[in-house]
Each structure stands twice: as C-alpha cells, then as structure tokens.
C-alpha cells in the first residue's frame, strides 16, 4: 500500500492522554474520538489536518494507557500513518491489531512539518517529495507482517482458524 500525505509533526513522549483525553473514553466511535484527537496539546489539530495526512513524531509515541481509543481516534480523524522514532508497546500492538499503519524511523528530524511524503508501507520506504529524499524505515518482524498483511488481529485469527 502506498500512502501520500502532508506531515504533521509532534515531539517526544506523546502520550495517550494527549491523543485522546480520558473524559471521552465512554465512546467507542472512531469518528467521534477522532473529532477530539490531540485536543489537550493542540486544540486546532483536527481542523488543521486533511484526510490522508501523516503524523511524524519523536520517541515513545503513545506512552501511557492501554486505551485502543487512541489509535482509533488517530484513524478516525483521517490520519493515514504514524511515523515515529519509537512507539510505546501497547500503542504499537494496538495499532497493528486494528490496522492503523505505523512505521519506526530513527531519523525523524530529517522530516519537516508540512513536508509531502509518499510512503510505501510494504517496503518501509519514505519518499520525501518536498525534499526529494528517499529513506528506509525499520522492517517489521515477520510475525507482525503476517498480522499487518491480514489487516489486523481479528482477520489474522480467523485466517488461522480456517487453516486448522
């Protein structure tokens, strides 16, 4: 899958309370959750982004709570991909489980806010169209690739069930 979008940059340690404040967690609706995404740290975020835009962040993105509402909110507001130096572990597995594309890329400072990126998820290749640079992300372990290619954990479980 190839994703093309403008970059919206965040710093280090963006936590799940930043992504979706706890007061909204009584909802399971990704559209509603999306409308409140990043409210605590950037109240205009959802107004500023366009469908398909890409979040690029520093280390430990998604730290804090286990709330799957966080990747759901990011998906729900129209973000197509999150690229970060590193991800907190529950956010990481939640994203893979629900099919929110994520990529680990050590040199996120090479990417600027508002850069236009074209990303080949399967190859882990980022083409920075603004800077005319190409770079490569960390590869997912094979096991995770299986889940990602099944488009999430539920489908992966069902596929495995039908195999056995």
């Amino acid at each position, binding site marked *: 899958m190839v994703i093309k979008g403008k970059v919206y940059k965040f710093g280090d*340690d963006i*936590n799940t*309370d*930043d992504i979706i*404040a*706890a*007061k909204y*967690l*009584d*909802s*399971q609706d990704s559209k509603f959750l999306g409308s409140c995404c990043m*409210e*605590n*740290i950037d109240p205009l975020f959802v107004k500023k982004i366009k469908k398909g835009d890409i979040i690029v962040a520093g*280390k*430990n993105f998604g*730290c*804090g*709570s*286990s*709330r*799957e*509402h966080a990747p*759901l909110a990011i998906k729900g507001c129209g973000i197509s991909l999150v690229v970060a130096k*590193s991800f*907190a*572990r*529950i956010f990481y*597995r*939640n994203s893979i*489980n*629900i099919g929110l594309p994520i990529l680990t890329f050590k040199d996120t400072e090479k990417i600027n806010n508002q850069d236009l990126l074209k990303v080949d998820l399967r190859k882990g290749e980022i083409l920075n169209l603004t800077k005319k640079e190409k770079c490569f992300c960390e590869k997912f*372990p094979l*096991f*995770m690739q299986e*889940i990602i290619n099944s488009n*999430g*954990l*539920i489908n992966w*479980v*069902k596929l495995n069930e039908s195999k056995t």
Partner: protein
Amino acid sequence: MGLTLTEKVLLKHSLSGKLEDFIYAKVDFCFGNDITAPLAVKTFKQAGFNSVFNPRRIGFICDHFLPARDLNAANNVKFLKEFSKKFGIQNFFDINNCGVEHVFLLERGFIRPGNLVVGADSHTCTFGAMGCASFGVGSTDLAVALKEGRVWLKVPKTVRFIYKGKLNKWVFGKDLILSTIGRIGVDGALYKVMEFAGPVINKISMEDRLTMTNMAVEAGAKTGIIEPDDKTFEYLKSHRSQVSGQRKKQDLKSDKDAKYEDVIEIDVNKMEPQVACPHLPSNVKSVSALKGVKLNQVFIGSCTNGRISDLRVAAKLLRKKKIRKSLRAIVSPATPDIYKQAEKEGLLKTFLEAGCVLCPPTCGPCLGGHAGILDKGEVAIATTNRNFVGRMGHPESFVYLANAAVAAASAIKGRIAHPEEVV
C-alpha cells in the same frame, strides 16, 4: 543458558512449547474495565465470535467511570452486564461489589504466582509483584483472548534492578519506583521487563512491591516482576483463591545464569521521599526541593497507592490535625474490603475529622474521569501514577505524584511538604 522468571512463565504458557521471538500463549486470566471492555466486546461481536474460551477465566471490572458519572457510563456497564449474562461470565463486577481492578482482582484471589495474565489496562503490570507474567494489552487483544484464551507476545528482554542499602523513614515503594523512572526515563525500559530484586525488595511489604510493579509501565516496560518469597505466599493466604496455577516457590525464580539485558544497582541510603513534577513521571525531584509548591487538591487513592497501608500512613499523619482550608483533599480506598478495614481501624473517622472528603472506590480522579477534576491553573498532589498534560482535568492544570505520607503532610501544609514537617 538459564532463564529469567518471566521467560519461565512464558515458556510454560507458549503453545509451541518453545520460546521464540514471538509466541502465541495460553492465558490463565484475562480482564477489562468499563472503558476498555465495551470496545473489546464490540470488536468480539463485529468479528462474529459466538463463544468464549472459559467464562471463569474472564473478568469485567467496572471501576473507571463508576459510580456511573453519566448516561454513557451507565450504558457501558449495562452492555457488559448483558454480554456477561449471555456467555455465563460470573466475574462481572458492578459498583455494588467492585473496586479498582488491579487491587480488587488480587484481593479476590484471581491472580496466582506463575500465571500468565492479560488485562486491557496498562497497569495490569501490577500483578508482576506476585511473580506472574502480567501484561497490559488493548481491546482487540482482549476480544481475541475472550474467544480463544490466547494472546500473541513478543518475548521480552529483562533488566534487573537491585536495590541496596537502608530505607529512610517515609521512603516507600513509591519512592523507589519514582526514583528509578527518574533515572532511566519514561522509555528507559521500553519493551523490556523490569525485574526488581535485592535486599531492599526482600524487606519491603507486598503492598510496596505492588506499587513498584504498578508503575513499571511508566518507564515503558512490558511489565514489572518480583520473585515470590514467603511474604508473597503469606499475602496470598490472607486472600480468597479463585484460580489454580500456583507452582512451587522454588520454580518461581530467575536462574543464576539467566541472561539480563542489563543489571542496575540502586543505593537507597540517601533517598528522600520522591515527587514526580508535571508533566512526566520521570520528572522526579526530592520532596525538599519542592516545598514552595502551593496546592489546590490532594488525592489519596488509585491502583498505585489506595491500599490499606497507604491509608494507615496518611491517617497517622492526619490524626488530630486539620487539612489546610485553602485546599480539598479526596481519599478513595481502592476496594470495599479496604474501605471496611479502614472504617474498622478508625482511619475514615480520622480523614473526616481532618477535613478530607471520602470517595467510593474508583479510578475517577486519577485519570480526570470524574470525582475530582482540576480546573485551569489548579495544582494537585496525588498518590497516582501519571501526571501528563490534562491528566486530572484542564490541560493547564498541574499534577505532582508522591507517596501517601507526602500527600497527607502536603494536605496539612497546603503546599508540598515532607512528612517530618508535620510530626
């Protein structure tokens, strides 16, 4: 090559019988709360699943927005109740019989040493203090665990933290873990297990140990773990037992030649009570450096420090004293059993006479859910685990994290205070 305790537990539960980079593992117990479980149940239903692996090994604990703060919260509880009824899940706990999950489940005997536990809540790592492999997961993970009783796991590396020296008065498990997070950072143990060991760990109480493993996730860890000893089994004896899985104590130790990613020694001799300043749990200072910080609210409770020992130490300081009139102090015993015990010991009376308000067992204030929200510019000290931007309410409010003694002393002084200042 020897194995760590975590590796031993995972090996025992790995469906392939091997420890590969990734394993599919059998769970002994899985659970969710009134925030994460409704999402899991919706995912379960959307997937078309129509059976659960074992109703006795599933728990739903309604603790976050309870007592129901509004219609949505009430509806989520009802939704879980109906699902539980349909699938014969008896371990559905509503407010009439419930408490903060990571305290309540242990009290009710659902967690045993050597178990593999997954919970749709990040502080599931708390149970590692009992010598089990206990991991926080998301709602989709829980949906699959409900159906299959299985979970995918990356086998983590372990870092061993060895605490040495003599603990000063007013220094507790909370201070040990805060100081450790301050030292390694909020991603200092990312994807890894923090194994807590050494003479200090042997000496501290089970409740202090639970506070430490509770906050392992605040350093990015997959979980925290402590080898069970006599204290662990004594603690278990004092609680009910629901599930089997307890193994011989001898099996539940890391091998002498186990491979650690790192071994870090921490000298506690000079440690003062620690306080994490806004807005990260790693932003840690000694309490003496913060005596100028004025407060609007004090909260004593949560899965980190809402246990009976926390209430005892807070009440000891508050006895025959008043909290500062300029602030509010909220005390929430983590479970009904703790509430009852506190009543029996006269602690609740002490809190009330000092001017604190009592709140039923709930996660509410800790996550800015309800029952203690901060307004713009307000400052709180809390015995909880997170102090992120907006964690307890307004994005421009400020949360300091500390042990229960520091919280109680601060309530008396109206500012951050060392317990010695009020004795």
